[in-house]
């Protein structure tokens, strides 16, 4: 068995050990996560392993198989050129399947004045792009993948990993951000073109700061701009679908989610451009008490 290279990463409350047959993805991760706190003791909540699908696939058409403490039996390997994506997917997988300290909501989140705006929806809804856009306009970026809801306090914890942009969103953000904020462009991935961006400095420096959830949006890109009310029952059902560990947390998850649904104003938001979304969000935000 070949020796694995290692890198330790701390993102919000979670600590990862990424072990890889190849040095390449670790070098890319180290560059993109260079502002994140360094590990002091090599402790990790989760290990992600990036290894060849078969021994000879280390060298011949190298392909990266994602595993770790938690893994999916049918996960397709990725080419070495997409090993950064494999590492990010591996960290997502560990959180989705293994994290128990918070209720995980598949949502992006940004913060202003100690209050959090959460955005959840299907892939392509724009939640990731909106969080990236808002974080360049006075909001603190808290995460584009998982919002971590503390079941004891009801507060949202930050998990500010790299922001994952897909397809058209890449050009939109390239128009407003310097090249130094971007990772490598990966084309032809299972989700199309992907390029990561490094979150703003304050998102990393303040990643231990929690925020009180103040607004939940279900954005939907590509429709005439409108805000719609949603019934609490519908919101509850959709959030159970958006949570990867609601069932695993049992009564704790039930109490946390019912409290959240009862307390947090929620809207469905259709929009066709970032400017429209920003206007709608600003109008809602200004009405919050």
């Amino acid at each position: 068995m070949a020796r694995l290279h290692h890198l330790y990463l701390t993102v919000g409350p979670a600590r990862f050990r990424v072990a890889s047959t190849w040095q390449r993805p670790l070098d890319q991760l180290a560059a993109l996560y260079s502002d994140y706190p360094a590990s002091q003791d090599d402790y990790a909540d989760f290990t992600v392993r990036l290894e060849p699908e078969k021994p000879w696939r280390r060298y011949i058409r190298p392909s990266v198989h994602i595993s770790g403490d938690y893994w999916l039996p049918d996960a397709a390997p990725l080419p070495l050129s997409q090993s950064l994506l494999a590492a990010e997917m591996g960290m997502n997988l560990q959180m989705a399947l293994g994290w128990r300290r918070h209720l995980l909501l598949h949502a992006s989140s940004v913060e202003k004045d100690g209050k959090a705006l959460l955005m959840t929806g299907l892939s392509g809804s724009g939640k990731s792009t909106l969080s990236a856009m808002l974080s360049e306009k006075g909001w603190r970026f808290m995460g584009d993948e998982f919002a971590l809801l503390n079941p004891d306090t009801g507060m949202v914890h930050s998990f500010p990993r790299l922001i994952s942009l897909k397809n058209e969103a890449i050009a939109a953000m390239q128009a407003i951000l310097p090249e130094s904020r971007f990772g490598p462009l990966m084309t032809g991935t299972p989700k199309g073109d992907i390029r990561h961006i490094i979150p703003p400095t304050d998102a990393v420096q303040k990643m231990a700061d929690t925020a009180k959830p103040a607004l939940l949006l279900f954005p939907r890109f590509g429709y005439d701009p409108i805000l719609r009310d949603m019934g609490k029952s519908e919101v509850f059902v959709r959030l159970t679908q958006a949570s990867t560990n609601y069932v695993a947390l049992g009564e704790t998850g039930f109490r946390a989610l019912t409290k959240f649904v009862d307390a947090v104003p929620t809207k469905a938001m259709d929009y066709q451009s970032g400017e429209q979304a920003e206007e709608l969000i600003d109008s809602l935000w200004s009405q919050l008490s």
Partner: protein
Amino acid sequence: MSQLYRTAALDGIIQYPLDSMTLIFQKSSGVTHMVADPVPAILEVMAEDSLTASDVAQRLSVSYDLEDSTDVADIVLARLAELCTLGLVEQV
């Protein structure tokens, strides 16, 4: 209609009303049920007593302004059968 029913232990569930629906979290299974009227009312009037469907219908008609008690008994019987399947009510 002489079959007796009683709720599973009330301390084994958590009821949480949300707009038109009520959530019932069942501690023993970890399952969250989402139910509509008249299920919450049925569980409320049953309390911890062993009752027939007719008894439940009678208690409902006392607590709520119901029009036709015959229909109510049929509806209660159907809901009790469903609640038995879910494990929220059991036959005695």
